[in-house]
């Protein structure tokens, strides 16, 4: 199984990775840490799509650096609280990735996310709940058959 983990907090990332690796034998966890990194890697993701995406919602745009890429207008307008949703949206708009289950793993309440009702690929797990719930979601998401092109 290949999991794409999009998470900007290194400690969270470490803990989730360790838990996934401990639970799922042979799992490969690819890590993306910022929204800019996701935008840069979308083609690569599409060419070798993962089985499941675990997506943090509130992501920073990029790491501090002397020459940082300027965020697009939409990112500047909506801000970091909707970064993960924008990334999920990018996946949904590509044929190669539109059916990949995306588990939004966040401290935000479900109601705050305004999730589209029609998109069955978007799942939700609160960071306040036990990590077991995340594991169960990953398991069920990876077991659910999905249409592949």
């Amino acid at each position: 199984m290949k999991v794409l983990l999009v998470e900007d907090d290194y400690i969270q990332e470490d803990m989730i990775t360790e838990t996934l690796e401990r639970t799922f034998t042979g799992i490969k966890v690819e890590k993306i840490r910022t929204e800019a990194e996701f935008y840069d890697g979308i083609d690569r993701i599409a060419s070798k799509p993962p089985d499941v995406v675990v997506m943090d919602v509130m992501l920073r745009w990029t790491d501090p650096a002397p020459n940082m890429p300027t965020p697009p207008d939409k990112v500047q307008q909506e801000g970091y609280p909707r970064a993960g949703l924008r990334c999920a949206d990018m996946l949904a708009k590509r044929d190669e990735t539109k059916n990949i289950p995306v588990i939004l793993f966040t401290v935000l309440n479900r109601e705050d996310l305004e999730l589209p009702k029609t998109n069955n690929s978007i799942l939700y797990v609160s960071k306040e709940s036990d990590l077991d719930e995340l594991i169960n979601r990953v398991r069920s998401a990876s077991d659910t058959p999905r249409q592949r092109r």
Partner: protein
Amino acid sequence: MTSPLGPQAAAPLDLASLLNTAHNQTALSGLSKILKLLAETAGAYGCILWRGADFPSDYLFALAQSFKGGETSDLHYISRKESATGAAVSSRQVRNVDVEREILVKSSDSFFTRANIKHFCPVPIQFPAGIDGALNFYRNVDKPFNEHELEIAKQVASLVPALYQIIRDRVGLNLMARVNDLLRESERASDPPLEIDEMKKVIDRLCNLIRDTFECLEVTVFLSDKFGSPEQYDRFATTWPATEEFPRNSYKQEENSLTGWVLLNAKSVRIFDLARFEDDKEELHKIYPGLTWQDSLTIKSAFRRIFNLKPTDVLPPLSYMAAPIVRGDHVRGVIRCCVALTGPFYFGGKEVEVLQLLASQIGYYWSNWLGRRGLQQENDWWRELVAEVTNLNGLVQEALSCEPPDEERVFKETLNTTRRVLKGADINDIRLLDEKARQLRFVAFDGKEWDQGTPAEIESRKNKRFNVDENPPTSAGAYVFQTGEVHVIHDVTKAEYYSLVFHATRRKIVAPIGIKNKLYGVLDIRGTGPDEFPRHAGVIAQLIGQQLGLYHYWAEALRELRKLDREQTQAFQDVEHQLKSPVNLAYNMINSFVRQDLSRLQLLLGDADTNQKLTSRFLVVRGLSRKARRVTKNMRLFAYLARNRPIPIKPRRLNAEVLMRILIEAAKDSTRMFGPNRNISFWAEPDGFELLNTLEVSADLDLIEHAVMNLLDNAGKYSFSETIVQITAEQVRKNQFCITVANIGLPIRSNEINLVVKRAWRSEKAAWTTGEGSGIGLWIVDHIMKAHNGELVVTPTTVDHLTEVRLIFGNK
């Protein structure tokens, strides 16, 4: 013009000279100059011009005279039936009268005796409008007029009516032109409009002009500045001698005085001689119905004093004319002239016509001035109103800034302003709605009448209530509340909706207090005096009512906001309080374990990898709980500062070892917070901190640690990857200690130095690189330093991306 035949002998008639003289006259006294020329032409010592009255009368009146040497006759009227002149006028025949022999002449008359008149010849003449008269030529030598001289006398006498007309026309035209120039000149020069005193000077000059032209003693103008039907007209300007008390300073439209009659009937009046008023009354009433005049010794005594006459001397004719000053349908005043000083002694119809035209000019000028002054006054008044409301808004802002908002003061200041801007607002109050009872109740009062009476009466008055839902309404307040419109009652005795509170109330305005569709109450304004409220009183009351509505809305909103703020702060405090204990406990337990028990556990486990992992894991947990502790403390300090309270500090002498250990641990924990990818290291340099062993620096250790942690958090968030955040210490100035946190990362520009310490400020690029954070970290650090009498100093980032933030504190 002396006769070549000697004095008092006829001379050739110089008609051109006569006409020229007549044309050049600027005053009616020019008639006397003409008579002088005529007397000389006729070879006479002097002459008197007699004329009949405008109505049937048994008398002829001396219009003008001229005698050599300035001699004057005190004979002002003679009987038609019992005088030689009357006989000549009746027969229309020139007569040659020997004073000694003529039966109809009373040679003992003082004038004949004084002037030693021997002969005179009355020549009948005809004035316009069928009025007869005579021009009498007199000689004081015993030389009767011969045929030739009589002929000349007839010729020159026949010229008199025409010459007199020429003089009157010229004088009248000249006067009107001069008055017109005077008034236009003063209008042109008056922007803004003249003040009342300046106006009086203009009318004064006008009166003097008329006086000099008509050669009369008194010219007085009475005016009113009220529109509609004024109650009285006051003396505005006069030529009455200042040495004498003015007879009467104001008149009403009435019939028991001449001037009052003119005001009442808006019609001009001309009286030949007031002394003959009773005699001529019947005839006068045919022209002026109801006209009366109170003959008064006071007036006659005044004239005697003015003319320096003895009690036995004959008074000159008390001629009188007055014209109403009218503009449109309104009588604005009256102008009157009285007592000609020199001939002509009687004001003729022409003079009255001229006076009417002058009155018309004055009416135009006065109305114009009133209008412009009214406009100016209105502009001034509106300016004052704006200033008052602006001032009121300032006072209200102060009152509402109090905790709680001082609405009582708002009401009081508003009622004071109402009294000042609305003339006649004598007893005022504010009523607010009691929502539950649906009644208006008094909440603020203005006017001493509120506190008059027994305590029970006062209380009963102030506690009176008014239902707003009654149908139909019985009080103006209820009516206004239901309609939402201002209600002006000009006469409370005739008001449909009115509930008595004060008997003295004559008129009232009730204005709604509210904004848009929300009404809070009403503003009551009561007038008790005779004058109506000013023109825009209703509009003003409405404006003030709306202002009160706004103030009330703000006061309620502020109360709500402050309540919310208190609740939020309390919630903050509560959350912080609930978190503080477990968070601090967790941190202390972890810290204690890491410091004291971790090494023993490592020994027990023995496995290097496991040990490393465990150590790392525990240090991360300590770092996380340190972060939780820092955030909790930020919340508490925020709650303090949001309520404008200073941060309380518990200073004690700082120990180098303790501080160093705290900062080194903080540095280690921070390093673990940002992950191997960013690879940001935190390093606390021990050198420098040892200064604390010699330098006595007092500070609140917890707060200093907290300040440094906030700086480290910022440094970590904004540092570039693969860099080191350094913590150093040094002594600055004499006794002050400085901790510096330096990092390589996002820039702080010079123009942002003052912004970084502002609450909730973050730079744009900072927002790109971290999601969390509310921009209060440096704001709180700044306040911690201020509480220590210290400083937070932020240095702008260098070209090498180095930023240094310094905490300076200690004894100054």
